[in-house]
């Protein structure tokens, strides 16, 4: 039998429903694994073990009488620490918010609980989802379970590290410039940034109103689709929420890619930001695999990564300054240095810079929309390099912006990042698939075809 800590969300939910495994046993196994591994991984900021065990006992009592709250009944989840969980502190991994106890669950947490999920605790992030990895904060940064000397990506660092290490089978992350997909890429798991507005952001500490997304992080594509099905839906109290009905995200999972048109945005990793040879080779392998599975691959051209990145930064930092300005004026020393440096640029933009960025953004959206009329899905790099060492600030600074995730925060299209292979050092390499608005089902379809062909869901880090 599979170790309890490697059960997928789907497997765990099935076994709990059939009473082959209890939620109590699963939760206890994950708490035991956290006591063993988390001192090396730092995935948790707050571990709420007693509340999780109480919730697991409730879930087992309900399962014993045939009651199932929803598709996640009895399955544990970790929550990034910029998302409110009632009764626990939402710190943003920052001294600024230490002791900031949430009075209610964020809508995304409320939905997970309503579907039966058990909250284990709050997870490490880059400070306020922007400043990290940092060693000058009240908690240490999370580390990569494939090699704890390496960066797990960010900003949803604890979510990526913990899912990959088997501390929990699913987690919530947030993504403003790539922060679900970066740790998914670095830790070799599956991370989705849904269509902008598909998942409510109410109860999530904002970084940038027009770029923020909440997304599911899991070890398999099927689990990701399951989790999105729980999270998606209109929230009239979130001004960015889309007036759409949740889709059937798992509907096309096992249809394969025969006849699908895949647009490969090669210039992102070939000329805009030339990728490490191992990443380039992994992307070629994904392309050939999809062709062998029956997809038609075409080359697609979009605006450059440099310009997408600039538009993202001007918008993100302007909006973030409007949130953090008061604290940066009064308490600059309570931020870590990286957050201070990444949040203060907003003070130096003019209104014209912000409006220009938002006007270019609309043009860029039109260009991606035009491309997605020619093909069914886009494929491109996620990270241009394998994860670097966490203790070398120059390497972190060099590799952090070398990515192709921000374009889809700018445009709001759904984008998934996942394992594409392993480097010679045994570190995850990644690929990204991007779909039309609200067509997460096709993104999952292509991602699942690659996962099935390459067996990426069977690969776990060697940490014990």
């Amino acid at each position, binding site marked *: 039998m599979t170790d309890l800590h490697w059960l997928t969300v789907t497997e765990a939910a099935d076994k709990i429903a059939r009473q082959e495994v209890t939620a109590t046993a699963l939760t206890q196994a994950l708490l035991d694994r956290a006591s063993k591994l988390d001192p090396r991984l730092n995935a948790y900021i707050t571990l709420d073990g007693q509340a999780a065990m109480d919730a697991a006992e409730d879930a087992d009592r309900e399962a014993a009488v045939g009651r199932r709250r929803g598709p996640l009944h009895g399955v544990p989840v970790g929550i990034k620490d910029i998302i409110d969980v009632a009764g626990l502190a939402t710190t943003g991994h920052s001294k600024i918010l230490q002791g900031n106890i949430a009075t209610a669950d964020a809508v995304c947490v409320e939905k997970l609980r309503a579907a039966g999920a058990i909250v284990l605790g709050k997870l490490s992030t880059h400070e306020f989802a922007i400043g990290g990895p940092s060693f000058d904060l009240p908690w240490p940064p999370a580390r990569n379970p494939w090699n704890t000397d390496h960066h797990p990506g960010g900003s949803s660092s604890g979510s990526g590290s913990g899912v990959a290490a088997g501390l929990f089978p699913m987690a919530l992350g947030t993504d403003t410039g790539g922060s679900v997909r970066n740790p998914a890429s670095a830790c070799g798991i599956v991370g989705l940034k849904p269509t902008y507005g598909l998942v409510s952001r109410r109860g999530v500490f904002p970084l940038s109103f027009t770029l923020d997304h909440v997304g599911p992080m899991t070890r398999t594509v099927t689990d990701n689709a399951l989790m999105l099905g729980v999270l998606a839906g209109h929230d009239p109290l979130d001004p960015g929420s889309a007036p759409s009905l949740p889709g059937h995200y798992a509907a096309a999972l096992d249809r394969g890619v025969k006849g699908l048109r895949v647009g490969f945005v090669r210039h992102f990793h070939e000329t805009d930001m030339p990728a490490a040879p191992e990443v380039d080779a992994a992307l070629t392998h994904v392309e050939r695999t999809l062709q062998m599975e029956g997809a038609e691959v075409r080359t697609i051209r979009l605006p450059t990564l440099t310009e997408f990145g600039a538009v993202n930064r001007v918008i993100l930092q302007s909006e973030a300054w409007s949130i953090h300005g008061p604290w940066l004026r009064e308490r600059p020393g309570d931020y870590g240095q990286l957050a201070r*440096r990444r949040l*203060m640029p907003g003070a130096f933009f003019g209104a014209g810079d912000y409006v220009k960025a938002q*006007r270019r953004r609309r043009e860029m959206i039109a260009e991606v929309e035009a491309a997605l009329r020619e093909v069914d899905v886009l494929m491109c790099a996620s990270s241009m390099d394998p994860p670097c060492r966490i203790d070398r600030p120059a390497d972190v600074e060099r590799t952090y912006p070398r990515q192709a995730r921000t374009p889809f925060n700018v445009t709001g299209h759904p984008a998934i990042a996942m394992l594409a292979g392993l480097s010679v050092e045994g570190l995850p390499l990644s690929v990204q698939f991007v779909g039309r608005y609200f067509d997460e089902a096709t993104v999952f379809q292509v991602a699942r075809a690659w996962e099935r062909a390459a067996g990426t869901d069977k690969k776990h880090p060697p940490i014990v």
Partner: protein
Amino acid sequence: MDEEAMELLARRAGLDKALAEYRDDVRAAAMQAADVAAKIKAPASPAAEPWPPMRAGRGL
């Protein structure tokens, strides 16, 4: 951006305390802002509107 302009803008934004205690960080932020803003092309048409579109009565 020269030092004088940086200081002027930082003070205008109320960053006096940060200037006194973390001047290098303020300078780095100012340089980053100038660099990144210069990388955005001008929109193709003067009539190009910003995102998100204005939609009266929505999201309130």
